[in-house]
């Protein structure tokens, strides 16, 4: 009969005893384990702190911004910028941000996913390729203002005939370069998460590499790639620093250069830049406007995220 003296609860069973009461006592163990509870409470506290910070920030913004929105209503969203606080609106910011987003999507997603597909599916595991991957990871960590300088030199100056200089196209391309490494990394991870057995199955029935990727790997990785795209959008919407260097205007600009196509070819701004600009105005009424604009920015962010998630879920259900 095995000795059961190491029951851990301090109850030592007499060898040979399987009496019910002995077993029960052993199974009950210690009623109260202090250590577990303490850890649980500590973890709860960390959660509270994190949430608390968020609540305070949002609360501050809400207190200042909601009255403005209540007072001005949709007028706030449809009027252009002005030096007079009660006339200023975020219309140009919204338009600018959306235009930038579109350009980022057009350039960063296909390039990023394509690069990821090449790296994961085609490239052999050579030293050169490992070096490439490391560099991509490093690029993701470069401060975005550096990309602003890059954008200024290449997109604004060097490619002026194509981009028109200090336009939203230059801004969009700059942002695209900022987020490109992130797209590559998340897409790579999504592709790597597809089990190799799927690829082998495809090859096993006589498919070429591209057929396997197109029909099986990409569809499987799509949710992950979409998630990466959502992350990208979130990052792009919030970027301010590089845009400052490539032409997003801070001040008031003429009502003539307004509207979608106007901002495309001419001077432009974005929501975060507008917020930054307003926050530096001496007039104290602009503080509340800043808060209101922040609320609008967050609303745009949430809408874009929600749209992307809905699209992702729809695709997931299809197959």
């Amino acid at each position: 009969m095995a000795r059961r003296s190491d029951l851990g609860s301090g109850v030592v069973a007499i060898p040979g005893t399987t009496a019910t009461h002995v077993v029960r006592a052993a199974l009950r163990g210690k009623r109260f384990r202090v250590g577990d509870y303490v850890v649980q409470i500590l973890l709860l506290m960390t959660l509270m702190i994190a949430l608390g910070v968020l609540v305070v920030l949002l609360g501050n913004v809400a207190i200042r911004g909601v009255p403005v929105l209540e007072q001005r209503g949709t007028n706030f969203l449809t009027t252009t910028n002005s030096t007079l606080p009660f006339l200023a609106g975020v219309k140009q910011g919204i338009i600018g941000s959306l235009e930038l987003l579109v350009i980022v999507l057009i350039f960063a997603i296909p390039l990023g996913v394509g690069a990821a597909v090449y790296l994961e599916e085609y490239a052999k595991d050579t030293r050169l390729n490992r070096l490439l991957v490391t560099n991509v990871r490093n690029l993701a960590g470069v401060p975005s203002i550096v990309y602003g300088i890059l954008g200024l030199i290449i997109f604004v100056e060097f490619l002026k005939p194509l981009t028109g200089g200090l336009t939203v196209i230059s801004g969009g391309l700059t942002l695209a370069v900022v987020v490109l490494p992130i797209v590559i990394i998340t897409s790579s991870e999504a592709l790597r998460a597809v089990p190799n057995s799927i690829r082998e199955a495809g090859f096993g029935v006589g498919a070429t590499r591209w057929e396997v990727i197109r029909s099986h790997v990409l569809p499987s990785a799509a949710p992950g790639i979409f998630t990466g795209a959502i992350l990208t959008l979130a990052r792009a919407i919030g970027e301010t620093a590089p845009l400052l260097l490539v032409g997003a205007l801070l001040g008031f600009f003429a009502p003539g250069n307004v509207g979608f196509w106007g901002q495309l070819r001419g001077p432009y701004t974005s929501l975060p830049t507008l917020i930054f600009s307003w926050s530096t105005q001496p007039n104290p009424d602009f503080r509340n406007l800043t808060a209101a604009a922040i609320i609008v920015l967050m609303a745009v962010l949430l809408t874009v995220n929600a749209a992307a998630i809905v699209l992702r879920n729809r695709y997931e259900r299809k197959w």
Partner: protein
Amino acid sequence: MSESGEYMDAPTVTRSDPSERSIHLERRGRERPEEVLEDASFVFEIKDLEVSYGGVQAVRNVSLNVYENQITALIGPSGCGKTTVLRCLNRMNDLIDGARVEGTLRYHGVDLYEAGIDPVEVRRRIGMVFQKPNPFPKSIYDNIAFGPKIAGFKGNMGDLVEESLTRAALWDEVKGKLKTSATELSGGQQQRLCIARCIAVQPDVILMDEPCASLDPIATLKIEELMYQLVSHYTIVIVTHNMQQAARISDRTAFFTVEVEDDGHRVGTVVEYDLTDHIFTNPKDPRTEDYVTGRFG
């Protein structure tokens, strides 16, 4: 490619009509006389096959012939090269960086590794079923239809899907739910689906890499029954760890072992290749004897 016009027209491969041959291979069983098994023609001729990964030799001195419409089993302990050799037969080793194959490997007389041979075409004629069932995360119908579609199949896909599933003894169980996801099937059903998927591109040979390793005993027996039926239309080569399975179903068995070099490096090789009843009643090599009786220490 080859002189024979056969290989030019994918997707269907014209095989010699089974009824033309003088041997009738209806229902397999131990009652077939040995002479019948001897007369069958070769599908694969393997001579002095050697495989290395990244310069390190993994398998050497493999020579054996695979006969048409027979089940050939590759048995032996782990790491002795059975799967490596199997994967050479349909050029799946091409997908591994640094894999090198030397020696002669002929398929119906054609050297599979000569210049100009397209591995994609090879894999359409020599299909593979893997150890863990790996259906595509799509519907049952799409799983089967994928192969023929990319091969350019122009006929009635619904019929082809039904025929493939019927041959894989799965049609009755799934006929009402072809559009549901393949991943909802049980393990045994998934494996039969993989067999159906393999059959749908109308191969000549089916390679099986421990197909029953992850299945329960009943599912295993169902797959074995299926193999009995399939072998009248296809040639089957199976790698298995289960000696009794090899004994039950195969016509010929090749026993692999590992040879350890002086520097500790391990290389797989074939020790004995013979009719299955010989291997299991009167093996010639003592290493084979030790392995099949379980005295292998």
